[in-house]
């Protein structure tokens, strides 16, 4: 069984005002097939956690470990992590001018699998996944994220999730900015990936509403760079009623 382990992770970032400590000892353990919701207020460090797992060069790991089935993820380059089975659906997907979605998907699939996909099956897979996500076929010939609406960008992230078939996916506020129809479509995509590949999910969100469509096995409340409380799905219901107020102002371990 695959496991993604995050142990006592401390992360900082360089700013104009000097080094800023963001993550202050994060512990998480996700087994394949499990869905962990990470919920927290703005600025609590959720995206920092997501980017650090993916290996964004801006974030500096001061101490702690990230292990994928015992392998040291922190020693891997960004692309090695992806090929090892990690996927990040970004909060703000990046525009790539002049590179079409279809070219991008094929290049990524080839990189992940180590060989080009068989044309016929691939074209069919792309078409079916796009249809399931209610994406217009013309999308494939548009440049990656260029001129996409917020909802289109998020669908495009989930399209990649379905086609690249990672072992673990970090979804960074994939629900933000989606209307309820788009939220359902995107959630169904994540649930399909879970059913098809036994995907483990780290579902980062600010709101509880996506949890109506993707049921978490565990909920972690994230405050000031660390997990402040953990529990089952019922914890999300309590957050829905009470908000994050009770956690704010709580002393933070250094």
């Amino acid at each position: 069984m695959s496991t993604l382990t995050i142990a006592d992770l401390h992360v900082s970032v360089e700013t104009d005002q000097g080094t800023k400590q963001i993550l202050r000892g994060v512990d998480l353990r996700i087994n394949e097939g499990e869905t962990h919701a990470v919920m927290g207020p703005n600025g609590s460090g959720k995206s920092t956690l997501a980017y650090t797992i993916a290996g964004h060069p801006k974030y500096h790991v001061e101490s702690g470990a990230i292990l994928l089935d015992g392998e040291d993820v922190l020693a891997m380059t960004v692309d090695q992590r992806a090929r090892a089975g990690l996927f990040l659906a970004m909060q703000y997907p990046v525009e790539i001018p002049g590179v079409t979605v279809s070219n991008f998907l094929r290049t990524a699939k080839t990189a992940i699998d180590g060989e080009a996909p068989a044309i016929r099956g691939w074209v069919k897979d792309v078409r079916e996944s796009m249809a399931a996500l209610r994406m217009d076929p013309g999308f494939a010939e548009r440049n990656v994220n260029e001129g996409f609406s917020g909802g289109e960008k998020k669908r495009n992230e989930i399209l990649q999730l379905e086609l690249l078939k990672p072992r673990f996916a970090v979804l960074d506020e994939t629900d933000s900015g989606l209307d309820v129809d788009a939220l359902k479509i995107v959630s169904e995509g994540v649930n399909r990936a879970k059913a098809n590949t036994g995907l483990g999910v780290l579902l980062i969100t600010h709101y509880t509403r996506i949890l109506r469509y993707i049921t978490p096995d565990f909920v972690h409340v994230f405050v000031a760079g660390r997990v402040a409380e953990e529990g089952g799905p019922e914890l999300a219901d309590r957050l829905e009623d009470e908000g994050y107020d009770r956690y704010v102002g709580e002393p933070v371990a250094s």
Partner: protein
Amino acid sequence: MTNETTATTTTGRSTPAGETNVGGSATGTRPAGPTGRGLIADATSRHERSAVPVQTRNERFSSTDVTAFPPVTGREAGWKLTPVDRLGALIDGELDGGRYPITVQGDGASTVGWSDRTDARIGTAGIPEDRASANAWSHFAEALDIRIAGEEPVHVTVRRDRLGSTPRAAHTIIDVAPFARAVVVLDNAGEAVLAENVEILVGDSAEVTVVTLQDWADDARHVANHFARVGRDARLKHVVVSLGGLVVRVNPAVTLAGSGAEGELLGVYFADAGQHLESQVFLFHQADHTKGRVEYRGALQGAGAHTVWVGDVLIGPDATGTDSYEQNRNLVLTDGTRADSVPNLEIETGDIAGAGHASATGRFDDEQLFYLQARGITEEVARRLVVRGFLAAVVQKIGVPELETRLHDAIEAELAGEPR
């Protein structure tokens, strides 16, 4: 009269992404240009805006006689961004103006031959405005004469790959009869020390694409001036692709002379270490209801890579109903490069449909790289995708499929650092 000049110089450094943007419309209100903030952090940048330049673009001194020009000092407006010391004989030395070997591939109603320098068409598209151009004019013996007739589409490629290292002068006429349709490719490779003038005569209602491809050997030096005159309802697509050569300067000057004439002026360049690639573009809207589009894109990589783009657009007093837009974008891939980008727009009539310009030079975007790598794509492949994508915006407009494929391959080779 409206007159606007904006200049940007950007020197690559290892600082994070940043973009210089100069954009706007010259139809009256226009956003103020940037003041230097928002530029590449830490980079050497300069912006100049002057309300009234000394001289209108079509009032420059011109002559076909090299001795009519004073010696070039390198401080002249037209030379100050060019490494004149590396051009040597091309500016004022002796040049071999005789015939040179060519390989012609043509079909349909086209002929390629040599015409005497007294031919009546010579000088009808334009006259030199700088000393190197006049030097070529003074020295050429015969003009390479490419004639296109009929109404069926014609494709002509003239390959020049055996010029050798003797300093040469050349003159070319591309003469497109009314209603003709053609693609003409000047395909340049190998060694060269060449100063030349190319005259493009586009007859009424003709439609022609002229591509000049500079895929020269590493130490080649090439100074070219193209003069085009586009007739009534005619259409010229002019494409400058500069990849190889030590110093390559190809300056197109296009006059939209007949009502309804259209000029699309495209350029793609990729400068690597030590290379100087330049294009000073002049688009003159002389007649009414003319349409102009200028788009040049370039990538710079390696120490001493230098590119220059100057885009002068002049909308003359009779050019009512004109629609014009010009832009230049540069992508800086490494430290130690320099991209000069200078758009100028002069409008001498109050009644235009639209006019604008934009210029942007940005560093390779690390966020794009991260996004692609986060999908398993290696850094090398990711870089290639991004640069290819950036240049594709212009390459796709060329409209000659074989050439597009070849350019994509050539760009990949540049990125891979393969010798050319």
